[in-house]
């Protein structure tokens, strides 16, 4: 779980993505994401994956986690998904091709695999394009940008941010409840039904705790004048500068260019 509160860090002019407004990083790749979902080929999503990866390589501070995600998890996931999507593909609907392998009546053909591969690539492309904003801005920054530029009511934005605090707390609480139920002998057998029953038993204590906690937080926030005025003092201004426009327009231009050029390469 990433910490949504970590302060914004600057990594110098080359790592330019960190210097952009989270909204421009969110809106720049949006058309590309939509278009990629609509494509059926392999080169287009591949081209956008390479574009986003190149931008991240240059413009983002590449820590261990991001590198792992980009160069290990992503290729493995695309590879694995291409097989699973391929197996789901209806053989009648793809062109006839050589078998990759066959099991009795069932045959897995190259075209099936290629069809799965394009689906997996589309998902991968959406993920990497999303990382342009996701890997280079913090939760607090995004909330501030939403409030300052998009005029999202700050009551919603800051409440969402406060809710992040619930996550680790509930994780811990669930762990305690599980061991408490185990001690009471609620082992109740194996299998999905027993498992579901077991989890249902955790819901009541977890919810009771959650509601009480949320009520207390709400009182504490009210006691500190949350929601007193339509706006609040902003200590961190997240500006939307000329460079944000430049980034967005350039990105849209490149998106259009790729869409025109890539199919012609085939």
């Amino acid at each position, binding site marked *: 779980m990433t910490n949504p509160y970590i*302060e914004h860090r600057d990594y110098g002019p080359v790592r330019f993505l960190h210097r952009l407004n989270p909204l421009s990083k969110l809106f720049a790749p949006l058309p590309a994401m939509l278009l990629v979902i609509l494509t059926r080929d392999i080169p287009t999503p591949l081209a956008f994956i390479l574009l986003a990866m190149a931008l991240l390589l240059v413009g983002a501070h590449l820590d261990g986690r991001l590198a792992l995600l980009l160069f290990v998890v992503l290729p493995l996931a695309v590879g694995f998904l291409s097989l699973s999507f391929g197996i789901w593909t209806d053989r009648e609907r793809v062109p006839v091709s050589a078998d990759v392998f066959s099991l009795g009546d069932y045959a897995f053909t190259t075209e099936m695999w290629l069809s799965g591969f394009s689906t997996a690539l589309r998902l991968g492309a959406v993920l990497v394009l999303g990382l342009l904003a996701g890997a280079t801005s913090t939760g607090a920054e995004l909330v501030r940008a939403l409030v300052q530029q998009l005029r999202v009511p700050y009551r919603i934005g800051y409440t969402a941010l406060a809710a992040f605090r619930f996550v680790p707390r509930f994780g811990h609480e669930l762990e305690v409840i599980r061991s408490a139920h185990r001690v009471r002998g609620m*082992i109740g057998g194996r299998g999905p039904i027993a498992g579901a029953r077991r989890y249902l038993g955790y819901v009541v*204590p977890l919810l009771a*705790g959650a509601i009480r906690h949320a009520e207390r937080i709400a*009182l504490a926030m009210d006691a500190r004048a*949350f929601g*007193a005025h339509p706006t609040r003092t902003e200590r961190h201004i997240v500006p939307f500068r000329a460079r944000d426009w430049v980034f967005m327009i350039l990105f849209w231009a490149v998106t259009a260019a790729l869409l025109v050029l890539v199919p012609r390469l085939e």
Partner: protein
Amino acid sequence: MISLDRVRIRHEGSGAWTPDGASFAIGAGEVVLLLGPSGSGKSTLALALNGLIPHEVPAELEGTVTVDGALTTERTVAQLSEHVGMVFQDPDSQLVTGTLLDEVCFGPENLLVPLDEVLARAERALRRVGLWERRLDNPDVLSGGGRQRLAIACALALESPLIVLDEPTANLDPAGIEEVYAALAEVVASGERSILLVEHNLDAAIDLVQRVVVIDREGRIALDGTVDEVLRHGTDALAALGVWIPVATMAALRLREAGVDLDPLPLTPRELAAALDAVELPAPPAPDGATALGGVVISVDSLTVTRRKTPILSDVSLDVARGELLAIVGTNGAGKTTLLQAIAGVVAPPKRRILTAGLDPATADARTLARHVGFVFQNPEHQFIRHTVAEELAHGLELQHLDAGAIAERVDSMLERFGLGHLRDVHPFLLSGGQKRRLSVGTALIAGAPVLALDEPTFGQDRERAAELLDILTQLNEEGTTVLIVTHDLQLVAEHATSIAVMQGGRLLAKQPAAQALAGDLLEEAGLRHPPLGQAMRALTRHDAWRGISRLRDLP
């Protein structure tokens, strides 16, 4: 500055008015302690001072609360926050943001205070509680005491002339309590703020306050006066109301009955020691002999527990005899809970290291284990799994496949014993705090376990409930149940435990009979403080024979 006139409050769905007709006022710079037995409406009253009642909490308010010349009903909670700051009991449920600085700025930002003023206020507030250097940390990394100091800083930053603190130390260990009171002392010393403190831990609060207001069980103001008037001269009235009085005062009252008259009545360990040194004392009575103990029922043999490569327990060995009431004490992170959970098999320990009532908790299955050792969690709600109180008790027996008649009989006797008979068809979650606690002890014992283990069962409860639970445990113990309890409340430990295991940094420093552990320097070595009576007696300069006393019942 704030005045209450015949304030009555009734929570939605509740029949009783608590408080019921409270009238008092707090002036500039005053430090007021609000006392009362549990259920008297202290916390409810606190919520009415900044308008949370009636604006946010569903409750009916009669009478008036006037803040700075205007009625709370005619202003919003946000407007009132500039006049009354609040610090709540649970440090975790008042945190909103990700850094200490953001947290302290949160209130002033909401009030549209200009930017440089926000930062100036934040710096003043954080410096006052000694957290300025840690302003960029996530509040999660602070200790409980640290987070509560942060909550005080947040109230300070609102620049409200009155700060209300509702049981601010109930969820803290002794070190945290000390931290919070040191920070509060700073605030009081500055003299800028009035303070209303709702607190049951009188021993910690007494040095700070000037005035005491006491509410009785019906929610009416019973006493209102200076610390001297209420605590020194109204002691008998307080005891009759069921309000906890300082341990030093209790000791003096007991001595008075034995013919040792201390005048004026001492309120703190320091005063008690000075008063005793000023008089002649008879020889103290011989402490009651140690109770006869049976054979070993729990044995732990060089237990080491490591989690995520961090050692939690290293090389712990101890034996517990049948019939002991063992308190496991230590600072946070000493490994107390881990040891208790290993003994009870809540978290599987390494194999062949522990024998609990003849079983190895590492390999025994949960149902067999439940017949040998009962475990009570800090929050009783966590272990409730059925829909009525009676089913909850029957659960453990059903797992043992007893016949229905035998189950009904044992459930009835358990309901009787814990005073839950009239609640047998109620959902466990609808019980009161004390009833939930008693039910959780009942469910842990019903399968006939000879060993009962409790993890911080008094955490977040007031003294009255804590004492009630300890009385139950003492009684069970006298009937032969071996009781293991992890707790921070050392006076409670002193009064009830037969032996004490002191832990530090994952090691067992020593396990000794309670009297011996309380008389020696073991607690200090582990970074703990002696309980109030022990502190007083150890500070005596005369009366060598009295120095080892730390239990009220060892006084004449």
